[in-house]
C-alpha cells in the first residue's frame, strides 16, 4: 500500500494525521503537486492511496475513512453526516477563504465567508455533551474537520469572532501528536502562507463564489 502526498497540500494533512493516529502500515511518498498519479482523472489530484489490488483512492475523506475502517473503526451515521457536510459546505467555503487570505490579503472578507459554516459547527458543538464531535473518542470526522479548518483557525490574524465551542473542540484535536506531526510535515507550521502554491494552481471554479451556480436539486 502506498500513499502519495503533496507539499503544502491541505488534504494531505488529513490523511497523514489519520495514518499516524491509526498506525496503519503504509509507504508514504512526497510527490510534486502537478503529478498525475491516478490515470483516469484529468487533473492531478493528491493525496492518493494506491491499494495492493491496484485500485486508487483519490478522495481524501475516503482515504481517511478507509484507514479507520481497516483499524476496526466503522463509519456511523453521525460521522458520515459530518464528512458529507465537510465536502458540500465547509470545503468550498474554506477554499474561497484561503484564497482571499493567502493570495489577496482580504482577511475580513475571508471571515465573512467562514461565518456560516463556523456558526453551524458552533451551534452543533454547543448541543453535544461529548468531548469530540460525535463521541468521547476521536473519530475520522474530527480529523477531517480539524484538517479542513487548520490553515484558517491556526492563523493568529484570522478573526473568527466568538466561537467558544469551536475553539475548545479544535484545540482538543489540535493537541493530538498525530495532528501536529502531519501539519508540520506538510505545511511546516506556516498555515496559509504555505498553501500559496497549492491555491494558485486550483481551477477558478473551486475558489470563486458559488452563488452564481444553479442548484440541481
Amino acid at each position: 500500500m502506498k500513499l502519495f502526498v503533496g507539499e503544502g497540500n491541505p488534504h494531505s494533512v488529513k490523511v497523514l494525521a489519520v495514518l499516524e493516529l491509526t498506525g496503519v502500515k503504509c509507504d508514504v511518498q512526497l510527490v510534486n503537486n502537478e503529478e498525475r498519479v491516478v490515470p483516469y482523472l484529468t487533473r492531478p489530484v493528491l493525496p492518493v492511496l494506491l491499494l495492493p489490488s491496484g485500485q486508487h483512492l483519490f478522495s481524501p475523506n475516503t482515504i481517511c475513512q478507509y484507514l479507520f475502517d481497516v483499524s476496526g473503526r466503522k463509519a456511523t451515521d453521525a460521522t458520515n453526516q459530518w464528512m458529507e457536510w465537510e465536502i458540500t459546505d465547509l470545503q468550498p467555503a474554506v477554499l474561497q477563504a484561503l484564497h482571499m487570505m493567502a493570495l489577496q490579503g482580504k482577511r475580513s472578507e475571508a471571515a465573512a465567508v467562514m461565518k456560516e459554516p463556523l456558526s453551524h459547527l458552533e451551534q452543533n458543538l454547543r448541543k453535544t455533551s461529548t468531548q469530540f464531535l460525535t463521541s468521547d473518542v476521536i473519530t475520522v470526522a474530527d480529523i477531517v474537520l480539524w484538517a479542513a479548518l487548520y490553515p484558517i483557525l491556526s492563523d493568529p490574524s484570522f478573526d473568527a469572532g466568538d466561537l467558544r465551542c469551536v475553539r475548545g473542540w479544535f484545540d482538543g484535536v489540535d493537541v493530538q501528536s498525530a495532528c501536529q506531526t502531519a501539519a508540520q510535515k506538510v505545511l511546516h507550521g506556516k498555515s496559509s502562507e504555505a498553501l500559496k502554491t497549492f491555491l494558485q494552481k486550483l481551477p477558478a471554479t473551486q475558489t470563486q463564489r458559488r452563488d452564481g451556480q444553479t442548484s440541481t436539486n
Partner: protein
Amino acid sequence: MALRELSSLEKCLGLKKPNKYGTQGERKVPVLQNNNGAPLVGLVTIASHLVHEAKKTVLLGNSAEERAVVQQWLEYRIARVDNCPKDELKVILKELNHYLEDKVYIAGNVFTLADILMYYGIHRIVVELAIQEKERYLNVTRWFDHIQHYPGVRHHLPPVVVLRNRVYPSGHH
C-alpha cells in the same frame, strides 16, 4: 430532485414504509426526520442509512476496500456531478468513461449504492447527449444502460434510448 431520488431508492431497497423527508438551506439539502433521534442531513448520509435500514449492507461493499470505492464514487457524485458547471460536464464523462473501461459496475464486479446514485445523478447529463457523444463515451453509455435496466432501479426517471449496436463498425475509425 434529491427527495424523488430518495423515494426511488426506498422502493429499490424494498423498504415498505416511506420515511418523512424535508429539505434545508438554499441548496435544498435533504433531511430525514427520525422518530428516535436527531434528523439526518445529506444525500449520501441518508442513502447509506437507508441501506442499513433495509439490511442490504452488501450494497455498501463487502470489504474495507469495496466500501472505500463505493464511498469515493458517492462523494464524486455530490462533489463533482452535482452543481457541475456546463463546461465541466465533458471532464466528468471523460473521467468516468476511462474509469469504467474495465468494469461492469462502479465497484468492479458487484452492483452497489454507487451505481444507483451515480445513475440518478448523471441521468440529466446522459439524456442530453447526442448519438455521437454516446458513442464517444461508450463505457459510460454501456454502464448507464445496464443500470437503467437493473431490476427496480429506474423508477422516477424516463428511460434513455441507447443503441445496443454501434452506429459505425468498430475498429475502423
